[in-house]
């Protein structure tokens, strides 16, 4: 019995001890030198960020740079603070892994302990060459934030969102996005969100200046799920999407850059740019972002050291898992996700034993991970709300719940998946996935407003209007004063041919948010359907004040005016609608009708 045990022990010992000895050494006393032993590691693992213009605070490009920080480097590689890489090693490999091997780590530590000797010039490998400026060459379109943010010298971390208004006139396909966050030393990470309906603009008090906030939600119209993780952190090499997986950007789309900024001790001017690289090839493969979460279970008593939150979702279709992005705030401790395959085998998708919000990242798999239908993805996040967690925003600790502020907590796991092996006849597999996920969320938390709302939206998009109405009604019951919920229920009732029932919900939406374009538009529509054209005109005019360039509103306003007999006014609005969008069908048709009525 003891023999196999001992042999296992021996294997373990040799695997941990072997790296202690430098590769070229004949014994532990051999002298390591920068030029021969250390430069290759530094050039590969440090210099990418530690060079002028990049995110790291000082350069590590040659012996004297490294010597000036030698003990510090030994400390941070030993503690694995540097290079920054949070996940534990695992079977499913990530692309661009920054983690140092044990052997390299030990070489650096030994070299510093031995006195950080330079060595023979002949041993020095060629200096690394870096692409200056845009990493992927000159982008097809460069956008710069309209107004800079002046980051104050002190205070807590700042979360700021810059809105980029795309100046494109027709749909473009994007194969890569390069984020240049401004002065990289002060930007911890940045994330692009695609805002197809100008949902973020209303949050800017000064147009072009952006707005604060750590977590932002963007409403979308119809089923158009986010599909790409557009993320920057120090050292990120821009990611070129695989063939056929381009990101669609339409005229009028906004890109919102969500940045996490850290004061430096002096005022800093932050004015990010983004570079877009287009392709002629429209998307043929449609990935989507799946979100596992359980924020409603986040109710962490003060002093609790190990508060566990889980979520388990079983896939209704086969997918290729491309990338994973876990997200928690300052109480996050041990972050894990696991896949349990239909045959019962388990694989770790990611394990971060010591979460650090400052180094959060999107992790892409080196190869897509095939997860067949019936695979259960499990999230297990633990949280430390005790004083032993030095990152705790509250001292002494307070009860913490889920929420969007940095002092609230979060439990999110984003997965970029590409549905595969599906039968297109059964509909868009992304809809199947999204509906299953929405249903899962409703079952998980029946009192979750968003879950009901999202399931309603999904059912509506799939044409199941009666079921959608049930979910919207449940949502509005949970939050009777919510603008979005009331508007969705009202819109669904209009769509279902119940304009009279819709009015009170749309009015409730406008009571909650007076400048709600969609609700004005929908209410105008509902009133027009009940022949209240004066009321409709009023609503369409209100909508137009909010979005003066909207051709559809112009056309509807014209139609309501025409119904009231105000033909001249109607004609002017139809013409303006066609000026904005020469293909606007209602305006076109009605203008023709007006001409026939009055050939002049």
């Amino acid at each position: 019995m003891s023999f196999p045990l001992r042999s296992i022990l021996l294997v373990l010992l040799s695997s941990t001890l072997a790296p202690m000895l430098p590769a070229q050494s004949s014994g532990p006393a051999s002298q390591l030198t920068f030029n021969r032993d250390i430069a290759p590691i530094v050039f590969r693992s440090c210099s990418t960020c530690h060079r002028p213009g990049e995110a790291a605070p000082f350069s590590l490009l040659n012996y004297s740079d490294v010597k000036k920080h030698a003990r510090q480097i030994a400390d941070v590689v030993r503690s694995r603070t540097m290079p920054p890489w949070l996940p534990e090693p695992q079977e499913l490999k990530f692309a661009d892994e920054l983690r140092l091997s044990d052997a390299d780590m030990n070489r650096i530590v030994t070299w510093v302990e031995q006195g950080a000797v330079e060595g023979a010039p002949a041993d020095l490998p060629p200096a690394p060459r870096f692409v200056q400026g845009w990493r992927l060459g000159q982008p097809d379109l460069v956008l710069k934030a309209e107004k800079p943010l002046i980051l104050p010298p002190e205070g807590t971390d700042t979360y700021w969102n810059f809105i980029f208004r795309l100046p494109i006139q027709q749909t473009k396909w994007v194969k890569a996005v390069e984020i240049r966050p401004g002065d990289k030393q002060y930007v911890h990470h940045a994330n692009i969100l695609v805002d197809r309906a100008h949902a973020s603009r209303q949050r800017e008090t000064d147009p072009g200046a952006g707005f604060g906030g750590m977590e932002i939600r963007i409403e979308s119209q119809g089923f158009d799920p986010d599909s790409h993780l557009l993320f920057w952190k120090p050292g990120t090499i821009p990611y070129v999407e695989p063939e056929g997986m381009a990101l669609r950007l339409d005229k009028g789309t906004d890109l919102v850059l969500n940045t996490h900024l850290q004061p430096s001790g002096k005022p800093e001017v932050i004015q990010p740019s983004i570079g877009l690289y287009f392709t002629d090839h429209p998307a043929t493969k449609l990935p989507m972002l799946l979100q596992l979460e359980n924020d409603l279970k986040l109710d962490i008593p003060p002093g609790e050291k190990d508060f566990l939150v889980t979520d388990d979702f079983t896939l209704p279709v086969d997918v290729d898992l491309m990338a994973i992005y876990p997200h928690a705030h300052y109480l996050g401790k041990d972050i894990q996700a696991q896949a349990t395959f239909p045959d019962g085998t388990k694989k770790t998708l990611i394990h971060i034993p010591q979460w650090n919000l400052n180094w959060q990242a999107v992790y892409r798999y080196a190869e897509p991970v095939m997860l067949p239908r019936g695979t259960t993805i499990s999230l297990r996040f633990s949280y430390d709300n005790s004083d032993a967690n030095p990152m705790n925003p509250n001292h002494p600790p307070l009860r913490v719940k889920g929420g969007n502020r940095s002092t609230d907590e979060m439990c999110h796991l984003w997965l970029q998946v590409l549905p595969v092996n599906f039968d297109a006849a059964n509909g868009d597999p992304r809809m199947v996935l999204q509906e299953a996920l929405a249903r899962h969320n409703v079952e998980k938390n029946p009192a979750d407003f968003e879950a009901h709302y999202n399931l309603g939206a999904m059912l509506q998009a799939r044409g199941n209007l009666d079921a959608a109405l049930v979910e919207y009604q449940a949502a509005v019951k949970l939050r009777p004063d919510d603008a979005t919920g009331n508007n969705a229920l009202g819109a669904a009732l209009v769509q279902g041919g119940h304009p009279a029932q819709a009015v009170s919900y749309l009015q409730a939406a406008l009571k909650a948010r007076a400048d709600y374009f969609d609700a004005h538009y929908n209410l105008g529509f509902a009133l027009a359907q009940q022949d209240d054209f004066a009321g409709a005109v009023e609503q369409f005019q209100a909508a137009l004040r909010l979005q003066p360039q909207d051709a559809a509103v112009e056309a509807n306003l014209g139609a309501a005016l025409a119904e009231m007999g105000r033909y001249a006014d109607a004609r002017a609005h139809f013409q303006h609608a066609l000026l904005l969008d020469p293909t606007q069908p209602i305006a076109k048709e009605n203008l023709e009708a007006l001409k026939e009525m009055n050939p002049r």
Partner: protein
Amino acid sequence: MRRAKFCINSMWLGTVLAVLCGLATAQQALDLEGHAVNPFAAASGKPVILIFLRRDCPVSGRYAPVIQKISNEYANRATFWLVYPDKTDSPQEIRKSVADYGYHLPVLRDPEHALVKLSRVQITPEVAVFDRDRQLIYDGRIDDWYIDLSRARPAPTTHELRDAITAATAARTTLAQKEVRGVGCYISDVE
């Protein structure tokens, strides 16, 4: 050199000689014009606070507003100096850095680490607090804001520099800890 060595070995000499010794080595610190400066001479009996910074140390940078707040608050009761121990920093580079961070404090270069040795500091940013009798009563971190190089608390929970200044300006000195190492960049890396 001999004098410095003598200092370290002279365990029995007591306060007076130790102070003399401190003065002698301190004279090797230079102002940005290159003149030798004794930071204790101009203190006119007030406590002296030496604040050690590295230009290339991001933690040093982030502490600038904290350092300015504390030095403003105690400006009448103590004398503050910024000390740059990296001998490869030129006076021009230091001048620019001081202006960027908006400091209004006198600046010393300490290329031979005379003040570093006198102050026993090891990291930037760390401080040394000398009382009216020029006794080193505290050396180390400003507060516990940083946990390690990748993590800082939302706000510090201890305030060693303030406590030490209070102790140095009070009649009786009662400090819990005379030395608490900081988080930042090693001074020995720029020897």
